[in-house]
């Protein structure tokens, strides 16, 4: 149960390339936090600085009030699960898991108990004497997790641990690892580019872009009410509509899109300014042609199992819409339909942060 604080952490390579810029982040005790971002956003470098593999150019890493910035990785008491699992190929499963305990001078019956305990946690009991090459990918990953759990680290760091697993196994591991982390209460940082993984497992997500945190909040907060255009586009799908502020009254303004105007929460923009409106495909609803906010023609209809996906050409541009598959008859390609939404579903992101 440890609290981790990163203050102004940054890493510059070769004097010019800024991999991480001024990372400020507090991870609460027992919290599961994800660093989510596209490749090259600096999330892995951040994790490596926390683990002690990469020295930061500036900033501090503090765990429970203790400055860790210049401490060697072996004395940080952090457990890392690597993307490649990084198991020791010349050691058995038990030796792999026992290695960290051995380094902590734990011997004999106590060592055996803790290795068995860790194996039981990841449901691999009985595989003690196997070698890594004799295990499947999923089993190797569990060994890598058990190896970290055995040392009861202050902080657990997960570096894209699921990316080598197939989709079904991955979603099972998400649930299992999350339950394990909750039960043990280990402060955890996960680095991933998989938004579904970040959303299913995290208490909070930090969306990273260009070495900075672009968005920080609970999964629902950053999905439903992101404050930057980057986050809106990076997480899930979104429709972008261009509109113009036609009138305003304190905080609420009327935004004219095509021939219709909609009320929207607005910042400091003046009447006459062009603004971008964002709306999620699942917030749009398809109805009869003569009802709804706009009218359009279905150009694409795709069946995704649980969902139907549409692309619809309207006066305000092409809109992407998803509807749940509830067995009802769906409009076909070429049909004219009406599209409805609720007032709060259209969001405006203030232009001063929309460049992130």
């Amino acid at each position: 149960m440890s609290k981790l604080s990163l203050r102004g952490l940054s890493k510059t390579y070769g004097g010019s390339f800024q991999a991480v810029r001024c990372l400020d982040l507090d991870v609460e005790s027992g919290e599961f936090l994800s660093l989510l971002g596209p490749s090259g956003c600096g999330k892995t470098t951040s994790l490596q600085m926390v683990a002690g593999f990469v020295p930061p150019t500036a900033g501090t890493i503090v765990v429970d009030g203790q400055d860790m910035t210049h401490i060697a990785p072996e004395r940080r008491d952090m457990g890392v699960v690597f993307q490649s699992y990084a198991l020791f190929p010349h050691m058995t499963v038990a030796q792999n898991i026992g290695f960290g305990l051995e380094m902590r001078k734990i011997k004999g019956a106590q060592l055996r108990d803790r290795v068995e305990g860790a194996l039981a946690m990841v449901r691999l009991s009985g595989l003690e004497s196997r070698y890594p090459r004799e295990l499947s990918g999923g089993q190797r990953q569990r060994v890598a997790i058990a190896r970290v759990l055995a040392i009861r680290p202050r902080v657990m760091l997960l570096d894209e641990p699921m990316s080598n697993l197939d989709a079904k196994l991955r979603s099972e591991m998400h649930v299992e690892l999350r339950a394990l982390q909750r039960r043990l209460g280990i402060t955890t940082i996960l680095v991933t580019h998989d938004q579904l993984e970040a959303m299913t497992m995290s208490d909070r997500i930090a969306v990273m872009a260009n070495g900075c945190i672009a968005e920080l909040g609970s999964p629902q907060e950053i999905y439903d009410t992101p404050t930057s255009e980057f986050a809106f586009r990076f997480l899930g799908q979104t429709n972008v509509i261009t509109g113009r502020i036609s009138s305003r009254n304190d905080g609420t303004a009327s935004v004219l899109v095509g021939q219709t105007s909609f009320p929207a929460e607005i910042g400091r923009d003046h009447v006459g300014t062009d603004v971008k409106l964002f709306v999620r495909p699942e917030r749009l609803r398809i109805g009869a042609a003569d009802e709804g906010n706009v009218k359009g023609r279905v150009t694409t209809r795709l069946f995704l199992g649980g969902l139907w996906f549409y692309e619809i050409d309207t006066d305000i541009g092409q809109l992407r819409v998803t509807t749940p598959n509830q067995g009802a008859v769906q409009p076909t390609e070429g049909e004219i339909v009406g599209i409805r939404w609720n007032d709060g579903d259209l969001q405006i992101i203030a232009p001063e942060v929309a460049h992130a």
Partner: protein
Amino acid sequence: MRNKTLRTNGMPWFLSLPSRAFKRGHTNKTAPADSTPWLLSLPALALFLGLLVVPLALTAILSFNAFDGMRGVQPGYTPGSYIEILSDGYYHELFLRTGAMSLGTTIICMAVGVPETLILAKMRPVWQGTFFVVILGPLLISVVVRTLGWSILLGRQGMVNSALLSLGVVDRPTQLMYTMTGVIIVLTHVLMPFMVIAVWTALQKLDTQVAHAARSLGAGPVTTFRRIILPQLMPGILSGAIIVFTLAASAFATPAIIGGRRVKVVTTAIYDEFLSSLNWPLGAAIAMLLLLGIVFVVVGSNRLVERRFKQVFT
């Protein structure tokens, strides 16, 4: 990750062809097509037979020929040469000296070559290229030129001795030419590239995150190297050691020029029997025993280390 099926599937087509041809032979009647792989490998096979197997067989036969000091090689067959070698202390010493020389060279190559490769791997790409040329340098120079160069360096007035004298390490020039020390120094120099290349290859296969994993689990840099990195480098170190040992035991030019008459080894003895004493059967018998000795050492050490580091080899 590297399981057996993957390896056979990943084999180049020209290696997997013959086995496929065999399999087809059982089920299919198209016999002529099956000879294609054999025809294709015929030139290489002929070269191998003509240049290696035949001369070796002839040497083996020669070693059993009778020999008479006055009349030369005789037609009859006798194990006389072998009995002479095995019963004479002079030859025992010769073989022991050769073994010591090869072992010494191998150990120094391991002790220097492994750290050398690790340092090389940490260098920036530009320096890596430069130092690779430096390390591989000895292989690019003719053996005679290189060895004569060393004999200049190692002489009583050579650069090595003047350096040692001016540094105050010794008071008078040490004898390096015509000594075992000198031979081992020069052999180490020329055989080092083989060790470096072998260790380098093993190092490239290493997952860099494995070292990080060991560190994060609480192992210091030294423990990480000893317990995690070194065991995984063992296959590379072993194959390097085998190459170095074999080449050192069968080296001729270096012991002949640097060791001279004083440090006589098996290869120079074979040369003398063939060209000075003209006792060809005895020379051939020494050569066969050298071959057997090398095979014995290589296979033996291979077995030993392979059993010890079984998991790394597969």
